[in-house]
């Protein structure tokens, strides 16, 4: 903690936070936080760190030895006497711990003991109990939420604030529910609707809008650490956007939160899982993946599994389990062993935790997110018919034909590479004393220490492999320095999982005994050209289209030459089948490969890792399970991810419903009922309205986890509809609005600020989903930092400049800079609460980012077209941005500034033209440049107003 914060807040704390005199001390509220912060590190759940065999995080522990705590007798309680012991050596906490208790805290403990030292289990680990809302007769109350809130206010002699204006309400609702402001027409319609249901109609309309799913997804993408790049050092492009689109669609079709979550955690394990259900499990494959050349895969596989534990426990349980990785948790009742039991659920994915240095690489396992089922369906049935007909024909004797694919040069379109030890290219050499050649004028060569290879992918005309094909290549091993192992690899649709090996088993790729690593026998004879022949069946290439070939070795020097395939002459019918198959493959290849979860069989064993080190497994094997404090998984069920996910949504789990509704609350009030939305543990903040939280949680469960209904419940409350005006007295009494005596007011998320500018100008392209786009960003940002051979930023054009911000390409090492300046996270790890800073960097984005200047320009054009008089244009512009009319003072300011710029640009028309050249959207040549430029300047101010970038 920054020590300097303490002083200025002390006054405030005293003012606000003391329990009223004579009030009863409550363990959970008053005592546990003190013990947790100061005592648990040495007297808490961590058995290894525990001192003096004293444990203060459980009732049994605290009362285990006599004299530590004596109910009703503070003077006899050692716990108290040690806190203000005169001898510093005896005093607790020890000076070197850096912790100390204030007099007030010690007094609280004294009072608590005096009042009987009543213990309470940590609130969040006790199942919520549905209580009836208090019954206050008040016209203000609109639903149950208000009863709970009003109850608190009345206890503090406070009153709720009046309802916000209609203009403010529709703007608030629209930004909250779909992340876009209302149009001027929508505001007018709402103002003109006198019916009692006017407000509810707006709510229903917004919940049915397809933009609702985008708004909800924006929050979920932070939680799921979604990004369009792999992260770590190379940070190249990945394709996970079909998963992102699944999320948007799931929200839009109001998939119950239970199904939404179970499918994301364990969709692959559902009976007869569909592609969509498998796709949903991309949730736990959104983590970063390494691609640096020298890494040890197991190290990063462990990091990946830990990431899944941390993300899953924070998102669904509101627990920070990470500390249990290295030792028993210092604060939460989670032992190291329990951490690894939870870890075991996610430790069973057949992944490598490493991707290659090329764009759009995927790690196993993955699914193809099928593009058009209809199209594929047609092809599939046509292929089936043709194949059946062929099978029924008598077999013809056909001659075999040999075709050479690689000799002196690579096939057309091939993209060559060389990596590992040796030259970083596909090195062809001319025939000489040093360089034997088998045919033609050249062969390719490589000398490696350890692993090295060259090859190519992306041949323009992939080769079709019918059954019975024999692949071949010629190799010459240097007798003085022969390799220890050689390998051939073929690429099918981006995958290299087709390999044959000769010699020792040293190259780490593929699984022994499968087509991903088929052993052909010992190394061929050295010092002469040897023809290697590989039956296509052995490497799973029959009926496949091969578009790449790699030559790999471990140690030594060799030459490769003349490679190709021998196959039957195809009948016209077979040729047609191949053509169709190619079309089918191409379609499927266009379908992006998306990383998902699946289970290994037999399962990988999980051991407790000493100090959390990947290379230090202990002998302690664990089975998948949940921490005992949360209860038990149902008996008789296989303890796997599906069972875990179903348990989360059973009545047994105290946390998931609370954690979920709390995050919804955070969307509408800026802060959750539990402020530490990611931490419901003993170190988290207690809920401001515990009974309301529990009521909402039980209501959520009762509704069948109906997400839209929960959003509606919250926004229909009178609490939500209060004005956000802050009276001086409220500012003093409750500056953070924890009591909810007013509507909340906070800065919009980065995405909404940009989307709003695009929307009000009319630039927004409201298309849903699809691959991520790269709108404007300052030049050279990627180049400054990325690994040299990684592609640089290439800006998109046209529609892709104007898509909603959640479709912006998210590169973890260089996140979109304009969104980042407004607190968008890097997505390297799960984020459940964003900070909301107010910095000059943010201001500069709103002023100068071409996105915002262009939006101002197009907004100005639109206003000029709609209104002939500039005063009307200014007024309409103000309404478009802020959803209300300007008052007279505001109107005067607008007009005065506009006049200034009219004069300015009349005098310097070249400046007007220059301003109107910002952004790629074509200028409306029919409009007067000076007039539009002057309005643009005013619009630039409006789009950055505090009122515009906040939800009020």
């Amino acid at each position, binding site marked *: 903690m920054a020590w300097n914060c303490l002083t200025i807040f002390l006054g405030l704390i005293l003012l606000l936070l003391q329990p009223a005199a004579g009030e009863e001390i409550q363990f959970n509220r008053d005592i546990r936080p003190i013990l947790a912060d100061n005592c648990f590190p040495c007297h808490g759940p961590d058995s290894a760190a525990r001192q003096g065999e004293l444990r203060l995080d459980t009732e049994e522990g605290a009362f285990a030895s006599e004299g530590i705590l004596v109910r009703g007798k503070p003077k006899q309680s050692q716990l108290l006497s040690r806190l203000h012991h005169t001898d510093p050596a005896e005093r607790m906490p020890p000076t070197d711990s850096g912790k100390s208790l204030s007099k007030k805290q010690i007094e609280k403990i004294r009072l608590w003991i005096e009042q009987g030292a009543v213990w309470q289990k940590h609130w969040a680990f006790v199942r919520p109990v549905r209580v009836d809302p208090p019954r206050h007769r008040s016209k203000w109350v609109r639903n149950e939420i208000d009863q709970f809130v009003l109850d608190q206010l009345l206890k503090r002699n406070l009153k709720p604030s009046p309802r916000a204006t209609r203009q403010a309400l529709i703007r608030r609702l629209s930004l909250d529910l779909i992340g876009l402001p209302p149009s001027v027409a929508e505001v007018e319609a709402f103002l003109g609707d006198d019916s009692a249901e006017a407000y509810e109609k707006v709510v229903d309309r917004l919940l049915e809008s397809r933009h609702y799913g985008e708004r909800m997804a924006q929050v979920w993408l932070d939680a799921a650490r979604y990004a369009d790049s792999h992260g770590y050092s190379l940070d190249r492009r990945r394709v996970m956007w079909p998963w992102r689109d699944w999320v948007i669609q799931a929200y839009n079709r109001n998939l119950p939160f239970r199904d939404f979550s179970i499918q994301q955690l364990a969709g692959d394990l559902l009976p007869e899982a569909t592609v969509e259900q498998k796709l949903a499990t991309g949730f736990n494959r959104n983590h970063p993946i390494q691609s640096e050349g020298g890494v040890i895969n197991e190290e990063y596989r462990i990091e990946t599994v830990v990431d899944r534990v941390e993300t899953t426990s924070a998102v669904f349980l509101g627990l920070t389990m990470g500390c249990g990785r290295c030792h028993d948790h210092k604060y939460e009742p989670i032992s190291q062993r329990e951490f690894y039991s939870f870890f075991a659920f996610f430790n069973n994915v057949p992944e490598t935790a490493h991707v290659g240095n090329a764009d759009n690489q995927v790690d196993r396992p993955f699914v193809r997110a099928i593009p058009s089922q209809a199209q594929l369906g047609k092809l599939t049935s046509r292929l089936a018919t043709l194949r059946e007909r062929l099978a029924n024909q008598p077999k013809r004797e056909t001659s075999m034909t040999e075709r050479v694919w690689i000799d002196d040069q690579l096939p057309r379109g091939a993209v060559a590479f060389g990596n590992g030890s040796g030259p970083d290219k596909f090195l062809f050499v001319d025939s000489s004393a040093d360089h034997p050649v088998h045919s033609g004028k050249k062969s390719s060569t490589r000398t490696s220490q350890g692993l090295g290879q060259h090859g190519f992918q992306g041949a323009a005309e992939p080769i079709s492999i019918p059954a019975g094909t024999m692949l071949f290549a010629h190799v010459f091993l240097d007798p003085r320095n022969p390799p220890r192992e050689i390998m051939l690899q073929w690429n099918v649709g981006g995958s290299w999982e087709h390999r044959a090996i000769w010699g020792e088993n040293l190259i780490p790729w593929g699984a022994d005994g499968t087509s991903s690593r088929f052993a052909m026998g010992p190394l061929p004879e050295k010092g002469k050209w040897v023809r290697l022949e590989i039956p296509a069946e052995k490497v799973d290439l029959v009926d496949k289209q091969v578009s790449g070939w790699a030559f790999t070795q471990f140690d030594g020097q060799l030459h490769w030459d003349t490679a190709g395939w021998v196959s039957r002459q195809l009948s016209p019918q077979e040729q047609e089948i191949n053509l169709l198959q190619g079309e089918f493959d191409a379609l499927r290849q266009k379908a992006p490969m998306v990383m998902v979860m699946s289970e290994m069989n037999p399962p990988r064993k999980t051991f407790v890792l000493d100090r959390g080190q990947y290379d230090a497994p202990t002998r302690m094997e664990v089975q998948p399970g949940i921490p005992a404090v949360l209860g038990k998984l149902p008996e008789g069920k296989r303890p796997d991810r599906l069972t875990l996910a179903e348990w989360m949504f059973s009545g047994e789990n105290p946390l998931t419903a609370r954690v979920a509704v709390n995050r919804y609350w955070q969307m509408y009030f800026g802060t959750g009922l539990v402020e530490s939305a990611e931490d419901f543990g003993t170190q988290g903040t207690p809920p401001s309205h515990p009974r309301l939280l529990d009521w909402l949680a039980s209501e959520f469960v009762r509704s069948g986890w109906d997400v839209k209904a929960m959003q509606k419940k919250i926004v229909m409350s009178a609490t939500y509809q209060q004005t956000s005006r*802050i009276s001086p007295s409220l500012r003093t009494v409750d500056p953070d609005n924890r009591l909810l005596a007013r509507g909340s007011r906070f800065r919009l998320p980065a995405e909404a600020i940009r989307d709003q500018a695009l929307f009000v100008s009319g630039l927004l392209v409201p298309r849903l989903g699809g691959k991520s786009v790269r709108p404007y960003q300052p030049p050279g940002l990627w180049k400054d930092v990325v690994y040299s051979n990684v592609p640089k930023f290439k800006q998109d054009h046209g529609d892709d400049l104007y898509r909603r911000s959640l479709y912006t390409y998210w590169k973890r090492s260089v996140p979109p800079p304009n969104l980042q300046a407004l607190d968008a996270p890097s997505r390297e790890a799960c984020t459940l609460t964003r900070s909301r800073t107010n910095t000059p960097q943010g201001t500069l984005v709103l002023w100068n980012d071409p996105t915002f200047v262009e939006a101002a320009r197009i907004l100005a054009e639109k206003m000029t077209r709609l209104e002939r008089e500039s005063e009307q244009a200014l007024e309409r512009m103000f309404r478009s941005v802020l959803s209300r009319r300007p008052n007279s003072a505001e109107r005067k300011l607008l007009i005065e500034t506009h006049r200034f710029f009219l004069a300015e640009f009349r005098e310097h028309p070249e400046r007007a033209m*220059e*301003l109107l050249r910002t952004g790629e959207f074509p200028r409306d040549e029919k409009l007067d440049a000076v007039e539009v430029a002057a309005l643009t300047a005013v619009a630039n101010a409006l789009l950055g107003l505090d009122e515009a970038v906040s939800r009020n």
Partner: protein
Amino acid sequence: MNELEDLSLMTTRRQLLGRASCGIGSLALASLLNGDAAAKDLNQGNGRTHFPAKAKRVIYLFQSGAPSQFELLDYKPELEKQHGKELPASFFRGQRQTGMTAGQKKQVCRSIYRFGKHGQSGAEISENLPYLAGVADDICIVRSMKTEAINHDPAITFFQTGFQQAGRPSMGAWASYGLGSENENLPAYVVMISEGSSKRDSQALYDRLWGSGFLPSSHQGVKFRSGRDPVLYLSNPGGLDGRARKKIMDLGNALNREHYQSIGDPETITRIRQAELAYRMQTSVPELMDTSGETEETFRLYGESARRPGTYAAHCLQARRLAERGVRFIQLYHRGWDQHGDLPRDLPLQCGDIDQASAGLITDLKQRGMLDETLVIWGGEFGRTVYAQGGLNMARYGRDHHPRCFSLWMAGGGIRPGLTYGKTDDFCFDTVENPMHVYDLHATMLHCLGMDHEQLTHKFQGRHYRLTDVHGKVVSSLLS
């Protein structure tokens, strides 16, 4: 749950302090460029440290890719005799190796460069760094650095944040968090990146390396770049000059004040202040970046390349200018030090980039009486192996990554000059005297800034986090 009902007003001390440090409200503390009055009182260089600080600021000259200690700062004459010998597996005592050389023969490789003794202290420095040799008595060489990681990403992330995985605050963010800014018109933490002259691929850098992690994002490093916008989005769009920008800002501020009258949220006032600050930065930052007023003598110190924007030398000169203006943590990254091969070609090029300018910076700071209050640190993320990667071809040799020992140097701000600290064995495989872990460097650096690394903490997700995690000790023999 009745008993919990009254909690709504029972915000704990921790919670309020947490709020304050999160800078969410109007009283953003210790914050970057925060014009807020409360923050100003607390943080504008009022010396609120744990104990008196020796250094007011840090200039960290980070050499990305990991320069080889064998060819620069750690002289190993024994290697002349051992050259070409193969190291048995037992030699490595369990040290893991990267996937790049794990499978190859390990042949000892000598350095092809000469070392000399320099200054009164007799510091051993290679012929690649003649200018550094000239300031040998002003610097302290540490030869016994140790780290955990063997690959670039985790190692550099560890160096910058004290943790190998992404998510923790960087050391500059910690400094900003702890000490705030001394200049309300400039960020507390500035980063500049230069490209090396070596022909090898440069390793990647990431925003997280100067990120704020779970600290308020206002503490993240602000990247200063060469070219039109030294700070992102700094310059106005074409057609709008400073006067026009002022007019637009005035309109915005006036409308914001109107809004404040009706809503009463102090955040609105903060936004007005931030706008004014942004406007001032539009003048102050370009003025800072404009070195045309520097004397010929100064350019002679840093070298001719200091005239070319974006070079390491230009950044060293900028670093001094930032230091003069009270920026708390100035971090340069120079790329291109990953000599797996072609070291004889590339290492001299890299040294050419940095040698004169680094030494020039020391001299310049000293001449201006600023060296005492400025801690300068130069070094990479790990060391390199005693064995050659690939073959033992002395015209094209290179070295793989090595974590157990490597060298860096420090100067000024509370560090003893003329000292060579720590010793490594004849193969520079491990330290034999005074090992200094990255955590120790962090602890010592914070100590020089007047902060106790065990007390500079931030609570996040239920835990008090430190830059040094649960490790680190101040290396007192380095202190002057």
